[in-house]
């Protein structure tokens, strides 16, 4: 205790009397190190997490109900929907029917019957337009045109990847038709064909949405001949998304579990996404570690120079009876000060400036809105690593100088 107090006194007086610019510079280096440690991996992970968030918001929600593995569709869909609505936690849901259809664009203009037909294979989703919009904000994803109305017939929304105009940006990898809002296309399922007017174009960061066509469920059932009214997917949003594990568990144990498979958002995530996220984390940590090494060398050099230039003074302190430990503490305290203030500024920058900034202005990536992710626990551990490494980097030079022979230090002898 006594050693600590005197050590701190010596350490902090040294900082106090040091040139303000030196101190600012060192703290700046530590701040950058902290940012490097937190923000770089935060952006890398944020990329993936941004993609995940988009999927959660625009496509899958918090809990996903789908057909049991040995079934084509959700059994007793009506009963299931009834059951879902009794859950107070569920604030929104959407029932989705889906099926494959062939869309044909230029069938009217095509005089020459031998000419090439402009067709594409679509995944068509039958939805309740209002519910779907409230669930997944679909109407906000319109790039062109307008959203479906509940009672109208003969309109379709197309995902952007189905259109030549948009999909061209990605090279020739999607099966597209050359059409635009207002054009009429013909949808064919088996031997049933029906004409639809393209009412709008949907564009999202989520590929599944870009690769969907939307029509009202009533029409879907008619075109696809789905008379059993059993849906393919029910997605829902909870008041508290973090509760989805518990709610899903409860649903599994209820009657819903007999008719369908219930997954949380996390469970439904494809493994590759989790792998990418982990990889990004490792990558970020690796880059951050380089930062830690650089920072610890910086601190080492600073403390070393500091201690070497005060070698005589250290000798005199020992000469008049100050313990070595006190002197070591004095230098470690300085290193701790730099690490703490640097991290403090870094954390302030991260949480008060960078995270809100990237939340407002996400980095635009094709598959995600890149945000900055820095969960407090991870940040804390990284900070702790930085802190401890800095302390050691400060201790070693102090220890090296303080252990030298007292008289030699006082007299400046080798």
């Amino acid at each position, binding site marked *: 205790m006594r050693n600590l*107090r005197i050590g701190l006194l010596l350490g902090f007086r040294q900082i106090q*009397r040091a040139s303000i610019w030196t101190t600012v510079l060192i703290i700046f280096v530590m701040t950058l190190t902290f940012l490097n440690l937190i923000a770089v991996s935060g952006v890398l992970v944020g990329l993936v997490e941004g993609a995940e968030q988009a999927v959660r918001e625009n496509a899958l929600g918090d809990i996903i109900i789908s057909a049991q593995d040995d079934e084509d569709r959700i059994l007793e869909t009506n009963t299931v929907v009834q059951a879902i609505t009794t859950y107070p936690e569920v604030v929104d849901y959407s029932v989705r029917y889906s099926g494959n259809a062939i869309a044909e664009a230029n069938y009217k203009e095509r005089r020459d019957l031998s000419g090439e037909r402009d067709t594409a294979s679509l995944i068509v989703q039958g939805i309740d337009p209002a519910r779907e919009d409230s669930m997944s904000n679909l109407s906000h994803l319109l790039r062109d045109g307008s959203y479906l109305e509940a009672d109208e017939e003969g309109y379709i929304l197309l995902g952007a990847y189905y259109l030549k105009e948009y999909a061209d940006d990605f090279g020739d990898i999607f099966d597209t038709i050359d059409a635009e809002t207002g054009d009429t296309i013909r949808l064919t399922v088996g031997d049933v064909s029906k004409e639809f007017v393209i009412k709008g174009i949907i564009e999202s960061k989520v590929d599944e949405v870009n690769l969907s066509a939307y029509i009202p469920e009533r029409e879907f059932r008619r075109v696809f001949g789905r008379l059993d009214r059993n849906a393919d997917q029910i997605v829902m949003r909870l008041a508290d998304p973090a509760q989805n594990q518990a709610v899903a568990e409860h649903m599994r144990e209820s009657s819903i579990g007999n008719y369908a498979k219930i997954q949380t958002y996390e469970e439904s995530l494809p493994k590759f996404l989790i792998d990418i996220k982990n990889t990004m984390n490792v990558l970020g940590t690796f880059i951050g570690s380089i930062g830690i090494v650089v920072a610890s060398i910086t601190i080492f050099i600073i403390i070393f120079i500091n201690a070497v230039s005060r070698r005589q003074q250290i000798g005199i302190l020992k*000469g*008049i009876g*100050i313990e070595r430990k006190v002197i070591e503490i004095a230098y470690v305290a300085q290193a701790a000060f730099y690490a703490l203030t640097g991290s403090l500024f870094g954390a302030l920058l991260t949480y008060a400036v960078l995270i809100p900034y990237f939340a407002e202005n996400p980095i635009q990536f094709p598959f995600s809105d890149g945000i900055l992710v820095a969960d407090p626990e991870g940040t804390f551990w990284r900070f702790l690593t930085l802190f401890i490494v800095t302390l050691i980097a400060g201790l070693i030079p102090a220890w090296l100088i303080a252990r030298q022979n*007292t008289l030699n230090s006082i007299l400046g002898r080798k």
Partner: protein
Amino acid sequence: MSIITAHNIHRRFGKGALEVHILKGIDIDIQAGEFVAIMGKSGAGKSTLMYQLSVLDEPSEGTVVIDGTDVSELREQDRTAFRLNTLGYIFQNYALVPDLSAEENVMLPLLMRGRGWLEARAAAENALASVGLGNKYKNLPAELSGGEQQRVAVARAIAGKPRIIFADEPTANLDSVSGQQIIDLLSDLHQQSKQTIVMVTHEPEYAAPCDRVLYMEDGLITKELSPSELQQL
């Protein structure tokens, strides 16, 4: 009563052919309450002897007993503690911590001895006042003249009321007025509180208030004089 008893002190530096023999078997006996000066030509080994007596160095041969403790038997950590608790130092170059105020410099060994902050500060201010720096507690060493800095060093040495004060040419870097001030401080201390002081000096007049003067030549104490005999040298 002897407070320092050194017997057959040798100090050699280097090894083999390069070995130099600096102290060549010194016997010293200093009584509690004595003010002793060590004099001699440059290179005679005065500082080297001081380091042996003040537990800053270990003799190659011989024993030093201070206040009943055979210091040659102490381990490094105990030597540090011994210096803290028993000895006071005044170095030639003031040797203050530049980042600490005058007051904090004086407080440092007191805090190290386990005194509370306020108690240490009161003692430090007392000591500073007694060396005539009552109005400069808060000054940094750089804000003090050389003589004032050395007085802070004196205050630091006396604040803990050590058994013995060692001073190796405490006036060497001072003008004669400041130098005389330091000598007066030491001599007052000696007269008023029977402080044991061992001092190295080159100036015969600074040795005047001493009880005894030990004269060194080539690693040995060759003469022991009284200050009045000194004048004839």
